[in-house]
């Protein structure tokens, strides 16, 4: 596990943007953090790094939003699946042609692939955040180490 502290929204988004440039189809990133921690804000940075021109808005209402870029982005907010244990076709996304970002991922733990990069966003004060990265699998460990170098 590694931690990075950021002081501004721009710094947080730059890290996400850098991460995006290292990703390939079928990669899964999970995002945890309280309401308002900046999960969608982080995803905006990631989308920029994937060359997506459209604005990234919250996926809360529709659960999944899809965007076209250098790689497609599948942006999920599974908060409302907390009390549900049904598969709504996750594999098609996780093993699809794009990068999947899952907000509140612990609610669908049983469907997540074993290899993934988990990011927890913690509040400091104001726009300061602690980004905590946990890589599962050698592939994501390498990405994580490159990201902090």
């Amino acid at each position, binding site marked *: 596990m590694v931690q990075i502290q950021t002081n501004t929204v721009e710094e947080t988004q730059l890290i996400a943007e850098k991460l995006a440039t290292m990703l390939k189809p079928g990669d899964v990133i999970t995002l945890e953090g309280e309401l*308002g921690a900046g999960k969608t804000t982080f995803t905006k940075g990631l989308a920029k790094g994937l060359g997506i021109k459209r*604005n990234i808005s*919250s996926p*809360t209402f*529709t659960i999944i939003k899809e965007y076209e870029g250098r790689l497609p982005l599948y942006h999920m907010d599974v908060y*409302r699946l907390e*009390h*549900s244990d049904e598969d*709504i076709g996750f594999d098609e996304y996780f093993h699809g042609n794009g990068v999947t970002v899952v907000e509140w991922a612990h609610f669908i733990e049983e469907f997540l692939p074993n290899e993934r990069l988990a990011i927890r966003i913690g509040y400091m004060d104001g726009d300061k955040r602690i980004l905590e990265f946990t890589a599962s699998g050698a592939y994501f460990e390498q990405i994580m180490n490159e990201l902090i170098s």
Partner: protein
Amino acid sequence: MKKDTIILGIETSCDETAVSIVRNGTEIMTNVVASQIESHKRFGGVVPEIASRHHVEQMTVVLEKAFENTDITWDEVDAIAVTEGPGLVGALLVGVNSAKALSFAKQKPLVGVHHIAGHIYANRLEKEFEFPLLALIVSGGHTELVLMREHGSYELIGETRDDAAGEAYDKVARMLNLPYPGGPHIDQLAAIGEETIAFPRAWLEEGSYDFSFSGLKSAVINKIHNAKQRGETLKNEDIAASFQASVVEVLTAKTLKAAKAYNVKQVIVAGGVAANKGLRRELETVFSETDIPLLIPDIKLCTDNAAMIAAAGTIAFEQGRRSGLDLNANASLQLK
């Protein structure tokens, strides 16, 4: 005499299963809505697969009931209009596939309709449009300003860059431990509270008609956290009043500015948040000082229904737009 256009509309984009028949895009012949709100309440929001299952169970019941309430027969129906997006994909699919089956079985043309176009056309069931018109759409999934220069033409001039207005309401309601859906509860609390907290207003860049409610949501959360740490107690009704004041001020000011800039002849409000009393009152006050007529439809037409889909579908049908039997649900459909 010109023959009437009779359109059957189907809507299943979220948690309402709805079928309606509308004559000439303006007159509701029958309008049946089966709401699932009770089933989703305990989850604090709509759960997709529960929604889909309900739609499957309700579709034929609602369809039969729609025909029971009217003298209109299938022979008189000119086309079937259905919401193709945006929305929950599993929910949309039930409506789209029902419409396709009916189109094939009854040999009627099929017309795919954008959900937001439907919300806009809900207003035409009450009053004829005058162009150019500006529509403010505010709901749990949408916050948009749409300019229409003629029937069937939609120009998106502003939209939310993060959370929809209704979503901000739901998330703040969650922080205040209010039941789902949060909007009406915050509206009620706001009515008895006072604006004691100066929450930010997201005006964005000069001249932008876009919205942003994520910063406001964070400000509310921070305020609650900070008060807790200091051992202070904030009154929920004051938080609600202060939050709502910020949302309402930005929505109203941007709508007014756009209405003047585009010299519109009508402003219409649509979507579930149009039922919010605080927003209605402020819009009515501000527009009463202009000569631009403001239309806010009856609450049952603000929330999801199929009459609005039939109404929007009527225009699309009359303009010659048809969908094939390969029509698919599109969760992220863009309004064009």
